[in-house]
């Protein structure tokens, strides 16, 4: 089939859905709205499947029209690139997107703004598809900011609540900080390489292959963009707050797709990252630090969504470490599996919240497995997948990242290993305190607790299956000769980095994993199935206090950035504007006014004085003439 038609089918349906729902949604029935909304991503998904069979292993460029001619050589068009990497991302985005749209129909059905919600989701999907398919940096940036905007809209979806609005604004602004880095990187690239087209850029990067300061700056600035979008240190604090949005939003945007955009970007620009080892070092350590800090914070959180949010941040840290090591395909692999199991976890958490009528605190849950059989099952699958229980999805991807880290940098490997233990701990804690043990909360809610409707369960099942089988696409060479993801992405990401670990290491790692998981499972089971709530209390001293306060990161930012700015701005407003600028500029006027006042004294109003001064003037003149 014609590539343009396929591309149009991939790109526009969600936008059309957005326009229809956005304009007419309030007057249409909810079912119709839901149908139109789901049709968009589904069409994209189908088109992607067709594209997969038509254009596999090629890079098909489709140029729709000229967006703008930036400089003489830099053409910026609505140009899209269908290659294996973008197709894989499209599968994730449109596939998970479709499932979450379907789920949302059930989850948001009672909400008054249902049509609005579905429209925003569609818009988000459109932006994300632009981001994924874009063939040049400005267009990618358009999608990049577009998803940020939709994230803003969806976090603040219930806009009557000012806290949610603040969270939405925080997310957008922190993303914008990253975006500034991104756009500066774009400028540097345009200045240095005179093109913004990915294909040409990759070529030029590979040709030049230099570790010049400019390249280092480009990569660092790009990575600043990544820290904003993919919630890395120091800009990750918006992501936990972003849980203010409805749960499907958290699943789609803040777990499966948008936050992985940064990973995708680095994978796209792999060539330039490959030639700047300095930046790679930075990336590795930032990823590790993010993974570690987020994992430790997650240990002490009681909000079911917050735990998952910090877990997402931590997992993104894993991916970033992989990127820093140069293992771009591994990172994308983890993006994929993470999309499956994290979406699954969020959606099932949403199912729990839905069933309990909005309750999010795990201290008030427990024993829900009897009430929500299916949810419990899929949540368990998700948990096992994320902690890396063989042979579920997370096992393979995480194992690969650990192996990559081991081959590059042993301390980082140890750090990541520790994070894995933390991951296991907080995930099992979450699981046990939600579904096992006894119910600890309000009995009124218990009586009303119910399993979610089929329309919400169906996506869960699909995601559960994907979480189970997702890992088989990337089995390590110990098991299978064929690493499907690796060979699929090689045409797009032809990085020359090789990572070799001995088979012994693999076996040791697996054994260790299983042992540690069993141990953690036992310990958490003991601790969190108890009836008492004491295990959930915020601790007032020691490390516990630091963790439950999230290292006071928000407070620190408030203190060192926002507060000085606010004080400065207030000072500008109250003092500087008036005294520093206005008065200085008008000072000649004041001087004149003063002088006029002073001279006014001479104007006594008495005629005698005037005549006297006149006579004095006469005499002076007369004497002057006399002299001559």
């Amino acid at each position, binding site marked *: 089939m014609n590539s343009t038609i396929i591309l149009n089918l991939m790109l526009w349906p969600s936008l059309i859905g957005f326009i229809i729902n956005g304009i007419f949604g309030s007057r249409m029935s909810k079912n119709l709205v839901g149908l139109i909304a789901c049709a968009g991503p589904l069409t994209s998904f189908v088109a992607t499947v067709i594209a997969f069979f038509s254009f596999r292993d090629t890079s098909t460029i489709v140029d729709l029209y000229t967006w703008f001619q930036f400089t003489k050589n830099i053409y910026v068009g609505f140009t899209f690139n269908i290659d294996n990497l973008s197709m894989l991302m499209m599968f994730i985005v449109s596939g998970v997107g479709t499932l979450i749209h379907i789920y949302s129909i059930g989850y948001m059905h009672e909400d008054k703004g249902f049509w609005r919600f579905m429209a925003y989701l569609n818009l988000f999907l459109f932006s994300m598809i632009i981001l994924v398919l874009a063939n040049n940096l400005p267009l990618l940036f358009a999608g990049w900011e577009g998803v940020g905007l939709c994230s803003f809209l969806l976090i603040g979806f219930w806009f009557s609540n000012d806290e949610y609005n603040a969270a939405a604004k925080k997310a957008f602004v922190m993303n914008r900080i990253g975006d500034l880095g991104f756009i500066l990187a774009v400028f540097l690239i345009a200045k240095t390489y005179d093109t913004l087209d990915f294909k040409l850029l990759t070529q030029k990067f590979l040709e030049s292959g230099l570790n010049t300061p400019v390249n280092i700056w480009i990569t660092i600035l790009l990575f600043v963009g990544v820290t904003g979008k993919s919630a890395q240190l120091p800009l990750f604090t918006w992501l936990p707050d972003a849980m203010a949005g409805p749960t499907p939003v958290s699943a789609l945007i803040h777990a499966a797709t948008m936050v992985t955009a940064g990973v995708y970007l680095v994978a796209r620009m792999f060539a330039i990252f490959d030639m700047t080892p300095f930046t790679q070092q930075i990336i590795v350590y930032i990823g590790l630090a993010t993974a570690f800090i987020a994992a430790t914070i997650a240990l002490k959180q009681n909000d079911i969504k917050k735990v998952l949010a910090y877990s997402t941040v931590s997992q993104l840290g894993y991916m970033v470490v992989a990127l820093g090591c140069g293992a771009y395909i591994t990172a994308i692999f983890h993006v994929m599996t993470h999309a499956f199991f994290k979406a699954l976890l969020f959606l099932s958490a949403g199912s729990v919240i839905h069933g309990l009528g909005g309750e999010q605190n795990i201290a008030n849950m427990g024993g829900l497995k009897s009430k929500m059989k299916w949810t419990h099952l899929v949540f368990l699958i998700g948990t096992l997948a994320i902690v890396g229980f063989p042979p579920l999805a997370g096992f393979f991807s995480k194992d690969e990242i650990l192996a990559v880290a081991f081959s590059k940098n042993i301390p980082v490997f140890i750090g990541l290993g520790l994070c894995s233990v933390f991951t296991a701990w907080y995930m099992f804690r979450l699981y046990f305190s939600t579904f096992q043990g006894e119910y600890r909360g309000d009995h009124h809610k218990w009586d009303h607790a119910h399993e979610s409707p089929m329309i919400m369960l169906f996506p869960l099942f699909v995601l559960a299956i994907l979480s189970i089988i997702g890992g088989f696409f990337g089995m390590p060479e110990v098991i299978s000769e064929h690493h499907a993801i690796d060979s699929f992405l090689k045409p797009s990401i032809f990085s020359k980095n090789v990572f070799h670990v001995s088979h012994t290491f693999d076996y040791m790692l697996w054994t260790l994993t299983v042992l540690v998981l069993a141990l953690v499972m036992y310990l958490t089971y003991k601790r969190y199935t108890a009836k008492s709530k004491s295990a959930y209390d915020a601790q007032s001293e020691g490390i516990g206090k630091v963790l439950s306060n999230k290292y006071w990161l928000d407070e620190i930012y408030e203190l060192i950035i926002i507060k000085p700015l606010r004080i400065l701005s207030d000072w500008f407003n109250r003092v500087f504007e008036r005294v520093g600028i206005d008065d200085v500029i008008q000072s000649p006027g004041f001087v004149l006014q003063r002088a006029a006042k002073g001279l006014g004294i001479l104007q006594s109003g008495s005629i*005698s004085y005037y*005549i*006297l001064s006149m*006579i*004095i003037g*006469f*005499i002076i003149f*007369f004497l002057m003439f006399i002299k001559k």
Partner: protein
Amino acid sequence: MNIDYIFYLLTALTIICATMVVVSKHPIRSVLFLVATFFCISAHYILLNAQFLALVNIVVYAGAIMVLFLFVIMFLNLNKEVERNKSILYWLGAIVSAGCIFLMLVSSVGKVALTNGNIEKENYTLGLVENIGMSLYTDYLFPMEICSVLFLVAMIGVVLLSRKENKFTTNTVSNV
């Protein structure tokens, strides 16, 4: 009697009357002395063979203007009001400064060295009514007409100023 005696006598009279204008306490007396001064000046004009000016001076100044002054003084009932004298220092200062001006003028009179008349084209009849009239209505016709406009304006101004319900004047005086 020689004509220069007449001149000196007249001059002395003029100065005395003028001084009396300044020093007399009563306004009416001032007015009357001023009228006397004007008569003296008119006499000077006659000495200078400027008969027309002498007549006009008497009619306009001593007649019309001074009557206007008198009228105003009486209208405002000022004849009882006795002005409080300014201090002697004030007088002294005024006399000194006026004296300076006087000296300045006199010394400049000495410097300028005027000749005693234009002998070549002597024409001593130009002060007569006929000759003045001729030059007014030929050479100076335009200023003459402008003068009439000036009088018209002055008349309108006076009427405007002395209207009963004149808010404008009230405001300007109290608000400036």
